[in-house]
């Protein structure tokens, strides 16, 4: 069995924020593990404040850890600025949410695409124009667009340029951080179809971060569900979506509207109590217990560790009981 391409182990990330003279320690990520195999697409779902984007940044070395480790291709994160760091910067790429700020408004599309080629000395300079044209065609854009400035492009076109830029250096892993949440539904489908197609053809691994369950289901091989800095459930996408075991996954799926009135009317809904707690003062034990319909005393005392459940892993003391009773009813 090969080591995974990306292996994040027990990541801890704490932000220190001062507000009104009071120092607050916000636990953005606490003890989260996630791994991505070569050529695999892993979906990371969570609501705002779950820490999913912070974990994504840590996965590619853009966010320092306060505990745990990140192994890329079996080796720990190299020190910033080292030769190994530069190599890593070629092998992992990231695409951000907002396509409108992702491109330097003062650079042409061609210049933006040349940047990774220059930074990583990808071939002789005279080969770049051809390579840029090739990349633009790969993402379904007219190569003529290299001469344009981003200001003249639509959101979908810009996001295609960002995909092209990420692909320019033939990376092993691309982190996609909410790449379609600023786009319209039809454009979103275009971008997801494009990235799924490229993933298949080039065999690049994807860490696909999104708040949209339907989107993750459409693209991911495996899915991890995150809540308040912890992974609640992870496993093959089909299994997580069809037989969710963690109460949070069940509640999340129960809250997501289904674009089909017949299924929608039958959707099992699990109302959640209260609001997401303050990440500076998270609940003891299970992070989800303050909102969980099944919470009991035990949940406040002991932190549930991720344990195997079918083909997935679940961090809940009582997942057997919860899924058992509801299966019978």
């Amino acid at each position: 069995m090969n080591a995974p391409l990306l292996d994040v182990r027990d990541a801890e990330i704490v932000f220190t924020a001062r507000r009104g003279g009071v120092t607050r320690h916000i636990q953005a990520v606490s003890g989260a593990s996630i791994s991505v195999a070569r050529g695999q697409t892993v979906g990371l779902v969570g609501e705002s404040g779950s820490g999913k984007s912070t974990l994504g940044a840590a996965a590619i070395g853009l966010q320092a850890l306060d505990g745990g480790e990140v192994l890329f291709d079996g080796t720990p994160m190299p020190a910033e600025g080292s030769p190994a760091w530069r190599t890593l910067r070629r092998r992992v790429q990231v695409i951000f949410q907002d396509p409108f700020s992702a491109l330097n408004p003062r650079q042409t599309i061609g210049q933006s695409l040349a940047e990774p080629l220059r930074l990583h000395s990808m071939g002789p300079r005279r080969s770049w124009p051809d390579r840029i044209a090739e990349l633009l065609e790969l993402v379904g854009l007219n190569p003529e667009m290299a001469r344009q400035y981003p200001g003249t492009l639509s959101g979908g076109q810009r996001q295609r340029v960002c995909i092209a830029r990420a692909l320019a250096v033939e990376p092993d892993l691309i982190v996609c951080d909410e790449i379609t949440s600023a786009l319209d539904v039809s454009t979103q489908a275009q971008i997801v179809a494009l990235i799924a197609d490229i993933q298949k053809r080039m065999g690049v691994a994807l860490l696909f971060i999104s708040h949209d369950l339907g989107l993750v289901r459409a693209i991911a091989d495996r899915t991890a569900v995150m809540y308040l800095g912890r992974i609640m459930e992870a496993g093959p996408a089909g299994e997580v979506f069809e037989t969710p075991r963690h109460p949070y996954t069940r509640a999340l799926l129960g809250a997501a509207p289904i674009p089909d009135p017949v299924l929608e009317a039958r959707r099992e809904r699990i109302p959640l109590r209260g609001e997401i707690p303050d990440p500076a003062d998270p609940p003891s034990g299970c992070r989800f217990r303050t909102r969980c319909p099944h919470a009991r005393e035990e949940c406040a005392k002991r932190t549930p560790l991720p344990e195997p459940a079918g083909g997935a892993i679940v961090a809940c003391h009582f997942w057997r009981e919860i899924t058992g009773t509801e299966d019978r009813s």
Partner: protein
Amino acid sequence: MKPLLEIADLGVAFRTSSSLIHAVVDVSLTVSAGERVGVIGESGSGKSVMARAIMRLDDPRRTQYATSSRITLDGRQILALPEREVHRLRGDAVSMIFQNPMHSLNPAFTVGQQMDAVLKAHRKLPGRDRRARIVDALGAVDLPAPGDLVDRYPHELSGGQRQRVMVAQAILCEPSLIIADEPTSALDVTAQDTVLDVLERLSRDKAIAVLMITHDMGVVARFCETVNVMYGGRLVETGPVGDIFAAPRHPYTAALLAATPNPAAPARTLHPIPGTQTTRRGSASTACAFIARCPHATTLCKQAPALRQIRANHRVACHYAEELDLKAAG
């Protein structure tokens, strides 16, 4: 029965320094009392402009309504009313809820103060009665400890709570219609679910009609009884939600459904709609709005199809509405 709201042949255009942008073209729709009606479309479809026109919220200096346009609310001709009277309707007979609750709430005032301002503007009530009514409204939207919440500031609340405050504010004067413009687009799924729950219950219990403007087919399926699909400023399909989702008759509706991610569907690739929507400038085009992206377009489509009835309450603006086999696409 006469509908509560009737929009007929609405056309809205905006003047810019160089041109006229036709944002809404010939849109007609009705909302009955207590009905939950959806308007779905992508950005640029004209759905929000249409919604704002109902309360005449656009700058009159640059907004032009087509001369044939009529908006009738409870017998009143909105487009013909003096501004003073339209202003009196806003927040009273008709309330609006917008996408970003942080922009709609003033951070310098407590929840109670802002709601009181609305109530004071429309109802002559002693202060104690107003407070009681505000607390009632906050309780009606399932906010915990409403008596305590009135004195809190917006920043002390989560996004979902703030949006429920907006809903509470919207029902203060017992409106007959709530226009909700993407009320849950900025919220997480769990918070969205709660807001939709509250709105649905209020609509049922108090017979408040809700016009839900959204880009999310899931929200339509979840919340609405009838749906109006807009594209390029025009209404392309309208009818009962069940009928339209089961058998869309306009190629755009079918394409939109196929492009919508579905958390309940077994893994499948999404079917993108090729191309992008374009905003029309200058004179309104005479072709079908969807012609450039439609896989079924023919030369006939260079003449805009009229919206026509194909079944009870189900109307479609497509020349080929009866012939196309659209379910296969989705």
